[in-house]
């Protein structure tokens, strides 16, 4: 489902006032602000990332960070640089995280040679294992898979993951635990 609110987005000149109101606990102003700044955040993220789902990941991270840091904004100063600094930092954090993940994953086309020495086949075995893992992940119930992705792969805190998924921290913990247990028995059994 796609909804747009573009026609009534608050203009950039209103952002400092909306944020000041949000700091004082005005939830409607805060919601208006968060919807209004989303295109700006996506634009910053698009400078570092190409894939639309990566840009969405950054945008979600930025909103969570803005939420945590909203007390650090000084309404006497412009809002744009404050927001831009947070968006840039979160974009770069995601790039770094990808690089870290990329360092242990391989994008080689599958190599079919096998060698007499079992140690020489490690590369192929690792690829098989990662394909197995991906298949097993897909067979997880949707809630468990989502919980695992938010908490373990995107490394969000439980509180942030709870906000993002609309589920309680307790439910997420249970889902992550069950997902890991499922993976463990499933992968050990194969």
């Amino acid at each position, binding site marked *: 489902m796609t909804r747009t609110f573009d026609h009534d987005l608050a203009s950039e000149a209103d952002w400092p006032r909306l944020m000041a109101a949000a700091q004082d606990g005005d939830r409607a102003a805060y*919601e208006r602000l968060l919807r209004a700044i*989303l295109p700006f955040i996506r634009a910053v993220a698009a400078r570092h990332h190409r894939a639309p789902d990566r840009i969405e990941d950054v945008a979600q991270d930025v*909103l969570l960070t803005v939420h945590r840091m909203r*007390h650090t904004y000084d309404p006497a100063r412009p809002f744009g640089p*404050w927001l831009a*600094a*947070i968006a840039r930092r979160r974009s770069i954090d995601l790039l770094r995280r990808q690089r870290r993940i990329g360092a242990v994953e391989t994008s080689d086309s599958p190599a079919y040679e096998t060698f007499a020495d079992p140690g020489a086949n490690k590369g192929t075995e690792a690829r098989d294992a990662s394909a197995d893992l991906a298949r097993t992940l897909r067979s997880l119930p949707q809630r468990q898979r989502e919980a695992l992705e938010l908490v373990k792969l995107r490394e969000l805190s439980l509180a942030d993951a709870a906000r993002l998924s609309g589920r309680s921290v307790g439910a997420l913990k249970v889902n992550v635990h069950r997902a890991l247990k499922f993976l463990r028995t499933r992968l050990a059994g194969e």
Partner: protein
Amino acid sequence: MTDAMDRLITGLAASAAPVRRLWPPAVRATLWLMVVAALGAAAILLFSDLATFAQRASDPKLAWELAGTLLTGILAILAAFELSLPDRSPLWALLPLPPLALWVASSGYSCYEHWIGFGPGGWELGESANCFRFILALSVPLGVSLLAVLRRSRPLAPARVAAVGGLGIAALAAFLLQFFHPFDVTVMDLSVHLAAVGLVVAISSLAGRAAGPPL
């Protein structure tokens, strides 16, 4: 807008309790420095040998050195508070460098004189080990309290903030050290002081990094 994003925004808005805005960084830095100044003054009055210190401070070289040390401390603390906010220029990190240069140059000069005067005796470690311990020991409580205050800003670049804050702390500790240090610095003293400062900066930077973003 995707469902997840919509849910996130609604959720964040629903949980948006009023927050207390941070005071301006200069005010926060001044308050922290005033507390440290009060404690430092009490320690000096109670424990230090002020007569010896007054005699030594009449030497303009030492006066320059003291001014450089104290200014490095104050400006680095101010810079750390500024840097801890997302929308401040990273150039704040350069603020403590001019007084740092003054500090190193003036104490370097007096080491050089000593070296001429005493010869290789200036190279002996002697009392310096105590200075090293003094700077490190004083930096720990100062560092912990500064970290606690800076964490309120949730810095986006915690390692940088902690490194600049660490420089401020080590400089303040080295300034206080002068009141309990009844002799001019020798080459060894200076290198020991600088090693202690460098160590404090490195440890704080690592501590900042370990605390992870945001601090």
